[in-house]
């Protein structure tokens, strides 16, 4: 017991002193239940990188279609093309949503959808070009590696060509979705057939090379092991060493409602496991500046506490969120409440843009 604790403290000291920890050391940390000790170190590292500032963004989700040829067991959002509740938004509908966003001081559209079987690349490039013309300040934080790969297949162009064409149209940033757990055995069991670990990493790397900055996510708390989580973190850290293109890392909990993967597990990952995973992510990913806490999947109370366990960003105020809500998880937060929760915990709220540049119009009370 004593020697185990000493070993842990040695690892944590190393991290706190700015030295990198090994994957096997991260595994040791995952088997350790002293949340306070892990939190304290993660908090020191987070504050060292970003001070007392906690950022957030005013954005909105636009899920342009729920039609998807993928068949992921963890998804409650996707529909077959002939399903009665399948939809594809029109340009007009999308423009309406962007207008609402701009009217509320929003700066980012989180634009993602299913893998639509027939929608051509030009639908995307023309849309972005049109919207960019009308709303030049709004950043399109759009797509995900599975969507880019799919667009390459639909268009017959290489992935790099697709990235270039979208970038030409005005695309500037990509969220890290579709990563789930970057471990092949788990992905196969999850029915995660739409993209492999290597494809996900390759597309991220190409984006970074083409100067499309991205984020990275991890969805945990389903059938993965501790070793799988660490493998995931290690992939992200190694790629970041090569490109520096990840702006933020966002771990979130798998939501077991309304999807086949949910039937394989008894309980969703607990708040304790969430905070622990967040803290270890902060400790391990020494080359990523921002770690985002998630209140959408775990609620406002734990979302606020994530600020003490390694998070320095609370993501978005989310005018609209469909994918997680479809899995039975509904949490709403507005900018005022976001600011209150950040300040109450002793941090400095700061509205940011997609690129983590701080905005002047933070509505501090």
């Amino acid at each position, binding site marked *: 017991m004593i020697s185990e604790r000493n070993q842990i403290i040695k690892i944590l000291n190393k991290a706190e002193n700015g030295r990198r920890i090994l994957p096997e050391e991260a595994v040791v940390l995952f088997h350790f239940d002293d*949340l306070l000790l892990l939190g304290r170190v993660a908090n020191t590292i987070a504050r060292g990188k970003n001070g007392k500032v906690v950022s957030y963004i005013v954005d909105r989700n636009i899920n342009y279609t729920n039609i998807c040829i993928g068949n992921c067991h963890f998804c409650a959002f996707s529909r077959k093309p002939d399903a009665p509740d399948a939809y594809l938004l029109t340009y007009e509908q999308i423009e309406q949503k962007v207008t609402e966003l701009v009217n509320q001081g929003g700066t980012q559209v989180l634009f993602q959808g299913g893998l639509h079987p027939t929608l051509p690349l030009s639908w995307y490039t023309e849309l972005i070009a049109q919207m960019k013309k009308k709303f030049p300040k709004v950043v399109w934080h759009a797509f995900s590696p599975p969507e880019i790969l799919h667009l390459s297949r639909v268009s017959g162009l290489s992935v790099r060509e697709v990235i270039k064409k979208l970038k030409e149209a005005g695309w500037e940033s990509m969220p890290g979705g579709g990563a789930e757990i970057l471990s092949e055995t788990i992905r196969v069991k999850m029915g995660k057939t739409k993209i492999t670990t290597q494809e996900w990493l390759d597309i991220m790397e190409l984006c970074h090379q083409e100067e499309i900055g991205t984020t990275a996510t991890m969805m945990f708390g389903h059938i993965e092991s501790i070793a799988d989580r660490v493998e995931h973190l290690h992939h992200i850290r190694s790629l970041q060493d090569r490109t520096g293109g990840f702006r933020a890392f966002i771990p979130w909990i798998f939501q077991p409602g309304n999807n086949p993967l949910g039937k394989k597990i008894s309980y969703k990952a607990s708040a304790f496991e969430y905070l622990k995973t967040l803290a270890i992510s902060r400790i391990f990913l020494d080359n990523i500046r921002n770690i985002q806490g998630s209140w959408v999947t775990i*609620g406002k109370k734990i979302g*606020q*506490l994530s600020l003490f366990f390694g998070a320095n960003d609370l993501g978005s105020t989310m005018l609209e969120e469909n994918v997680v809500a479809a899995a039975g998880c509904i949490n709403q937060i507005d900018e005022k409440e976001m600011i209150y929760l950040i300040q109450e915990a002793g941090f400095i709220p700061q509205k940011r843009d997609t690129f983590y540049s701080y905005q002047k119009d933070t509505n501090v009370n």
Partner: protein
Amino acid sequence: MRNSHFWESIEKKINEVHPISREEAICLMEEKDIFLLGELANRIREKKNKNFTYYNINAHLNPSNICVNSCRFCAFSRKWGAPDAYDLTLEEVIDKVKGIVTERTTELHIVGGAHPYHKLDFYTRMLSRIKQLYPKIYLKAFTATEVYQMAKISGVEVEAALKELKSSGLDCMPGGGAEIFSSRVRAKICPQKISAEQWLEIHRIAHFLGIKTNATMLYGHIETPEERVDHLLALRQLQQETGGFQAFIPLPYHPQNTSLGGRNTSGFLDLKVHAVSRIILDNFDHIKGYWVMTGIEMAQVLQSFGVDDLDGTVTEEKITHAAGAKTPSHLSEDWIRQLISSAGRIPVERDSLYNLIRQ
């Protein structure tokens, strides 16, 4: 926030089991470093309860929502004659009990409004009927507010009322009705309710009669950190005198459907209040994280901040849910055990007096 001398003094007192001062307690209540608070609270928690977290298999019974008081934080109470007022007869109470207890149930938690006309004999008959049917189930019944009301309208002293309740099967008492002891706050949020002195006196009498009780504190409304500290110190003092309290249960305020309004407590405030309570109440064995009110996620995390008890499976919680609680009204035993073990603690099923039933 404080200098190292301050923390050394607090640590020394905790290690030597000396009570901390009011001023020190107020500093703790205003502290923003949750790790310092958590480490102190956790040290006391592990000293008293090792790595165990307790729970029980319990059911809630609320015989009536009719109440003579109109507390502004309450969304449950109704006036007599209101369209959604309800008032179970003795037979209905028995039917209800039969519906909610299982073979595994070890405790019935019975609380309701301070009823305008049910006299003591209504409650003594209730307890003895239930006890007759289920002799092994502990009856944890009636807050000090209810006991005061039933004694008053029956024209007897509280002591006599408690004696009769005890001989009818009352095993222990819940800790409700304490709210915040500050008379300033009580005048604003529960002016008709018994005073802090009356609440403490009723618990003192219960303890002298051998009835163990719990204590609570409703926080996150209009009270100040000082008022929270004074509440805790008053409890600490009575416990010093009687030793009759089993658990202290901080209760986060829920604003929905109340006339007081306001916002829900934050995770940060929940952590702080539970941890500081654990530090101040060094003569209480148990600090409970009441998941119905804190939320399941918070209750789990609170195990690292002083909490060693997660209440129970709770069948049919009504009072907090009337105020908009989004928690389920029941947890399976399996889920509770999971919440405990996945936080690195050892789940222990207990009875109402903290005797071990199963590890």
